[in-house]
């Protein structure tokens, strides 16, 4: 499945994750925030990091709340 994900999808996804869960996301990553907020998203190493935390964020936040609060609902539409 991973091979089928386009790089642009991950970049878009990361941007969404940063908007939705900034604190949670940053608490899971070792890289400085600035690298996720701009041009460094094209860096392959950063992309792997994002993929890894993506799994964690989903596991951590997605299932815990059903999502009465829309902001905290977990959506995976980029992986359709």
């Amino acid at each position: 499945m991973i091979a089928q994900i386009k790089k642009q999808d991950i970049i878009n996804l990361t941007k969404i994750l940063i908007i939705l869960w900034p604190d949670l996301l940053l608490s899971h990553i070792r890289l400085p925030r600035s690298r996720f907020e701009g041009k460094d998203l094209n860096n392959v190493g950063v992309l792997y990091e994002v993929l890894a935390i993506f799994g964690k964020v989903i596991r951590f936040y997605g299932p815990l709340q059903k999502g009465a609060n829309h902001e905290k609902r977990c959506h995976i539409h980029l992986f359709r």
Partner: protein
Amino acid sequence: MKKDAIFIYSDELLTYKFHDHHPFNQKRLELTLDLLRAHEAIAEEDIIKPRIATDEELQLIHDPKYVNAVKLAGLGKLSLEKAENFGLGTEDTPIFKHMHEASALLVGGTLQACDYVMTGQAKHALNLSGGLHHGFRGKAAGFCIYNDSSVAIKYLQQKYHARVLYIDTDAHHGDGVQWAFYDDPDVCTLSIHETGRYLFPGTGNIHERGQGNGYCFTFNIPVDAFTEDDSWLDAYRTSFKEIIEYFRPDVILTQNGADSHYYDPLTHLSATMRIFKEIPKLAHELAHQYCGGRWIAVGGGGYDIWRVVPRAWSFIWLEMTDNNKNSGPLPQNWIKRWQTETSVTLPATWEDPEGIYKPIPRREEITETNAQTVSKALYPIRANKSASP
């Protein structure tokens, strides 16, 4: 005289309401009943008012301390700190005024449905206000306070000595009911839901099969996100048929959450109206084949209250009453009456038109994965069958 079916409803059921912005909205009940009336598919004498469940009945499943906490919360007398221990006052399950009464009433509705069916006053009974499958013994969760299905199953066991098959087709795992009867061999549960990898409550893995004497009486079929009609229906038909033949229940209780539809804002499945027509059809057929018709159906999730739930839930009633007027245009007066209240365009027909979503690129992979999931989930039944002479 024995009725084909009864429909549990009163306006008081609409008091189960967290707040104006909460996605769980019982206006769905009103919209559904009004659609059935506009369709001339229900008579006033088919509608039965729910009774309120007693504390004793609630405590068939729920901890007395929890029932007391819900009562206090509804009176504004429970501290937030204490509430949190009971899963109350959270974003998902906020406290609202008189929440005990509203919750106990929908449980009473499901118990009444049980009584009608088990005493032979009706073959089938429908309580769309029920189906709150995330309620636990001492904890509220996922928009559910009391678990009407769990209470009803215990009630069916104690009062009627019935073996119950519980079928849960909500997009979320039916965790509350599963855990309540996890070690009980006289209750068999099947939940078909979107995989818990991404969706609340995160459980419902194939390997959750029951424990102790209840081992192999719990079945879970977690389907992939973006699963479409054919693959979903294949999983449903195969598992329901094999499980009922294996378990041979006295009565079937179906939970009919309508949140597997593509339009549902909380989940990620890609089903259409097709599955909601087929779900009650098979339940009905099997209830007559195995249980002398005894079939109780409850509601559940469903968060597109305008475009999905009224049609999906009407299909259950149409099926129960052998009414085959279930295709073509929806009644114009229904559309006219409600279109003024919402900005979404109400559907014009009972079915969804073709192409409501873009083709799913991973369709083949998803279909294959789901088929494997079904095989793994049903493995104990199939292995047992091939081992016996």
